[in-house]
């Protein structure tokens, strides 16, 4: 809380770093919590980051609720973004595992006859070659299945997050009395 010269009303200030092209239109969403934008600056290092400054009166109604809802909203968005970053982790690990197994089997199939050309070694070579093919076929099917599940899970999470953020914004609107400009337009 600081007093601006010529203005007796004490104010709170907020400085936020946002990614430029975020899908949530966060710059406008902060206004629902009673914040008024004062400045927007580009980051000196990253092209997709902006720094936005806001202020609002120190004494406002329902401040605790608005603060908690704001934290909630930020947390939901960051959690979704984190989930987006790591959504294909399991399929990537599965793919790596399948690839390593296939490579090892192919290597075994190639090396076995080079060691000795007996019936046993040829059998081992054939067996390893067959296993490598089966590993690749079933491995790819497995990875595709995991990937499909991951996409579905992420879609469900995105939907839940979107509903949650909408609910938070509606509640913030009611508490702060500020109208959502997106809905108006």
């Amino acid at each position, binding site marked *: *809380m*600081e007093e601006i010269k010529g203005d007796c009303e004490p104010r*709170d200030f*907020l*400085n*936020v*770093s*946002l*990614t430029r092209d*975020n899908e*949530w239109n*966060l710059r406008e969403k902060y206004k629902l919590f009673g914040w008024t934008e004062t400045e927007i600056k*580009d*980051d000196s*290092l*990253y*092209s*997709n*980051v902006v*720094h936005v400054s806001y202020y609002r009166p*120190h*004494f406002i109604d329902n*401040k*605790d609720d608005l*603060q*908690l809802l704001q*934290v*909630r909203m*930020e*947390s939901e*968005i*960051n959690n979704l*973004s*984190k989930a*987006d*970053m790591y959504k294909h982790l399991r399929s990537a690990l599965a793919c790596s595992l399948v690839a390593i197994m296939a490579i090892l089997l192919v290597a075994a199939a190639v090396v076995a006859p080079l060691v000795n050309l007996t019936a046993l070694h040829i059998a081992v070579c054939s067996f390893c070659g067959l296993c490598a093919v089966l590993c690749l076929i079933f491995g790819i099917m497995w990875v595709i299945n995991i990937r499909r599940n991951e996409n579905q899970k992420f879609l469900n999470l995105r939907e839940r997050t979107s509903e949650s953020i909408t609910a938070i914004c509606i509640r913030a609107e009611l508490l702060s009395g500020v109208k959502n400009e997106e809905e108006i337009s």
Partner: protein
Amino acid sequence: MKKKYPERRLGKKTIGKAVYSDYKVVKIKTEENGLGIFKTLIVMGVLALQLAILILIYLFLSYLFRWYVILSYVLSFFTCIYVISTNKNSLSKAVWILFILLSFGFGYIIYFLSDERIFFGRKKKRYARIFAASGKYADEYSENCCNGEILLDAQYLYRTGGFVPYCGTRLKYYPSGARMFDEVLECLTSAQSYIFIEMYIISDGVLFDRVMKVLEDRATAGVDVRILYDFIGCHRTLSSASIKRIKRAGIKLECFNRLTPRFSVALNFRDHRKIIVIDGKVAFTGGVNLADEYVNEKRMFGYWKDSGLKLEGSAVRAFTLFFLRQWEFVTGRVQEYGRFLSAGYEVPSESVVIPFADGLDYDYHIGKNVYENIIANASQRLYIMTPYFIPDDSITALLRNKALSGVDVTLVIPGVPDKAFVYSVTRKYAEKLTDSGVKVYRMKDSFVHSKVVANENCAVVGSINMDLRSFYQQFECAVYTDDKGVMKDIQADFDWAISYGERITDYDRRRKNVFQRIYTGLLQLVAPFM
């Protein structure tokens, strides 16, 4: 207008501006935590060095004198017997015995280095002298305003610590630190005589600047301003520039239990009290320290949920006395108690207010026992809000039995941890109670720092966490009251916290895998020190 960004060049190749690729879409600019880690590392390094020297001396003696090994084994055995006979809680005893037996060569030495009767004995005698000398300024005990339901608690508090019930005091409960400090600032500006502040944490920042402007103004006007802070609490938050600023303003500043690079477990005893006294007429206490995160000016662990209490009236004398005794202990100079405790100031009120303190200056674990009494006396409902839930066996058993008897027991803990390992143990203890019917809520995206325990008749609001550290090692303070207005506000606060909370069920406890169980089981070994 299309923006052009400065381009980076690597030889003849042009690279565009870097792209931020961390997952965070939004970042609040105050999310950095703490400073001064370098100083902490140096002191910890020196302490670790002393411990290493102790171990090396043992190994050297064992190598030279074989009988020393036998002797240390015998001494360890008898030390274990001694530990069993002490008054420590059962978890502490078990951990100490395990430690002594596993490190039988030097474990018993470390145990005795940590015994407060040896290394805090002189300080306890000093406290006893201070209490004896200032005893005549303590108020007389009177049961006139206590009714049957709280009479026993009032008698307990008087007999264990000399804390008296006050009838002429008005209370106001704050469900957030920001609201409390708005009123603190208002009251500080109207101070005429003295301002006493005792805090565990004082931190540079927006709130500190606001408070300092008022304190500087009041100190210039001749008000006696004193600040007492805890060294460990403030060593990474209060810069030397701020200390100089405080002293330059003519404010008296003292530090409790300064950290020295000398191995001593007495360093573990901290002043966790939060007291603000203004002119002997108004006092504030609760869980709120003088730092930005407590008023949500700084984002550290999500939304910071806290509680505070304002006292106006005769009960403020008790806090004045607590502060002056601690000030005398720290400075070594006898204080003019009469100057600050001469006049009484009463405000019409129907409620009973009993401010009390706890710590190594008292012979009993008052905070823990008051909590136990409140839990034991609950017949309809019991509310507990605490940042750390590491109780000992007696409190766990009481909570379980109350829930099984049909009492509505609700426990609210944080949803965001400040210390991951402490939080793991807190979750473990909280989840263990869910099978008895205790309702446990985590407040989502929030760090709950409130310390509130209430049943249908009375409540305690203060600085006492429900963990072993607050019960056995720290200096604490709180207010016990049956004020109906405060009880109603506490109920509303719990309803609010629960509406933003997520209930932990027995399913959450059962679905933990074996590695998580081993991890939390190992952390329990150090729970007495958390």
